[in-house]
């Protein structure tokens, strides 16, 4: 430890610019690795979540990108006719969210309402930390059983009621807390699997036929955009597409399991490949720059190392010192990455951004920790490459020649 302190304070810190340069380069390598890993993990997480739509007989609705929504043409009756057709001929999963309401809570967060029918609920298999499963057989004028996120559980424990002005029904309703969702339960965007909405400050409202029939156009239209038909055939969804076109003037596409797979391979996998390759190239470039920086350090500190080697420092001890030094630099960088991530995550709490607020140490969730682990691994690789190169460079010049230098 004495030797380590001496070498760090008398050799490395005397040329602090080189150390700072190394920290900044490592920081970039870490940031790139961290961001790429998180993107890839988040996309795979989203893909796993949506695996249920990649099943035989399941078709996912997508509004044709060339189709233009003309609200003047879409009528209440036309939309209802589509839902009547759906109710009579299909088994379908309905889900929509993003309706914001003010519900008093201990964090002063705006609360997001999510609406789902029984099929969607069964498909997703939401995990609860408290309470019981949702009941979809309720009366609209009575208490509606709901699931709430962990962030609301202190204010509204299981069994308590929440009174809100229900926007989609256009009247006040009483919600009864049936269960508390596990912390950090999320929903991935079908069109951007790496983008997520967290349910920590959400209320999930079960919707049944009566609810949809009484709801306003916003709910019906938004729900239709992501509708998932189950146990269906291509012909049946083609007919449904025609019904939507006739009644609402919108062109809908329905994608099958195979089409979803193809889409994933073509779109997501391709994007992930590009991310991985780009990251790899950048990682190599930064590693090369770090090696250059390290060799420059050796060139400037050669005399100091040599004198220490002359008076008894062994190469193995020097290697150990280098590894500890890079360990410290990596630790500094990891801390920086941790702080940036925590700042982003915790920032959601400070900004009262309910859809992104997460639970964990400073809001860091599983994929953040996993990404940090990958960063540690990448640092070990860079550290090994750099330290071994430095030692090789030092050993290459005979001590006698170095003394002359």
């Amino acid at each position: 430890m004495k030797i380590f302190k001496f070498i760090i304070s008398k050799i490395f810190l005397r040329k602090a610019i080189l150390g700072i340069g190394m920290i900044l380069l490592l920081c970039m390598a870490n940031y790139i690795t961290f961001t790429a890993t998180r993107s890839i993990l988040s996309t795979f997480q989203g893909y796993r979540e949506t695996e249920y739509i990649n099943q035989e007989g399941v078709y996912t609705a997508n509004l044709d990108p060339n189709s233009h929504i003309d609200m003047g043409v879409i009528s209440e009756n036309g939309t209802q006719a589509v839902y009547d057709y759906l109710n009579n001929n299909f088994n379908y999963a309905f889900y929509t969210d993003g309706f914001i309401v003010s519900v008093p809570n201990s964090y002063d967060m705006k609360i997001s309402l999510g609406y789902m029918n029984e099929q969607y609920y069964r498909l997703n298999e939401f995990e609860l930390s408290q309470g019981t499963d949702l009941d979809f057989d309720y009366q609209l004028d009575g208490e509606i059983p709901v699931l709430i996120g962990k962030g609301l559980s202190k204010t509204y424990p299981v069994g308590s009621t929440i009174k809100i002005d229900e926007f989609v029904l256009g009247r006040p309703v009483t919600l009864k807390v049936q269960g508390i969702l596990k912390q950090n339960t999320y929903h991935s965007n079908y069109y951007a699997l790496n983008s997520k909405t967290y349910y920590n400050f959400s209320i999930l409202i079960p919707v049944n036929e009566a609810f949809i029939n009484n709801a306003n156009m916003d709910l019906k239209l938004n729900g239709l955009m992501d509708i998932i038909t189950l146990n269906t055939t291509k012909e049946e969804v083609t007919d449904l597409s025609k019904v939507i076109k006739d009644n609402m003037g919108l062109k809908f596409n329905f994608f099958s399991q195979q089409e979803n797979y193809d889409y994933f391979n073509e779109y997501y996998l391709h994007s992930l490949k590009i991310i991985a390759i780009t990251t790899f190239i950048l990682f190599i470039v930064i590693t090369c720059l770090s090696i250059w920086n390290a060799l420059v350090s050796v060139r400037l500190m050669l005399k100091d190392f040599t004198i220490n080697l002359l008076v008894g420092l062994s190469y193995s001890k020097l290697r150990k010192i280098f590894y500890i030094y890079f360990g410290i630099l990596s630790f500094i960088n990891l801390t920086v990455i941790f702080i940036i991530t925590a700042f982003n995550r915790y920032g959601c709490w400070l900004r009262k951004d309910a859809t992104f607020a997460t639970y964990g140490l400073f809001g860091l969730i599983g994929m953040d920790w996993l990404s940090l682990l990958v960063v540690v691994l990448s640092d070990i690789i860079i550290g090994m490459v750099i330290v071994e190169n430095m030692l090789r460079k030092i050993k290459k010049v005979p001590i006698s020649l170095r003394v002359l230098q």
Partner: protein
Amino acid sequence: MKKSLFRISDVLELCTAYMFCFFLNLLFNYVKIMDLDSYILKAFLKNFTDYQEIIVLIFTVVVIVFHYQMLHRKKTEIFCKMLVGDTIFNITIRYALNCLMILIFVCLLSTLANVYLKFNLISNFYLTFIFIIYILISAREVRKYENF
């Protein structure tokens, strides 16, 4: 060339460092105007393009390291030249001019590339300005090596 502190290898090294930074900046400008239809890629790249200036600035550390190690390596040369009739003022001016010439060459190449690709030149000039500051700071450091 002999009066200069720069050898061919030093010129190439500094050229590469400048080129790397300008190329990185160019790459950012290119990524920004790329018409990507992949949300994942867009979201991934946004993590970098949003911080273009900071990231490029961080990478300019390679130029700082170059200046630092260059002067450190040349301290004997500076002293020897002083002994045989050079002045610290002339050495400093020559050093700064050499750096500036290399910078202007790389900056011109980068400007041409930016103009050809119809990119905004502001970030290019901003980077040049930063490098000029580095040159001026490092030129001030030359006098540190006046005495052996």
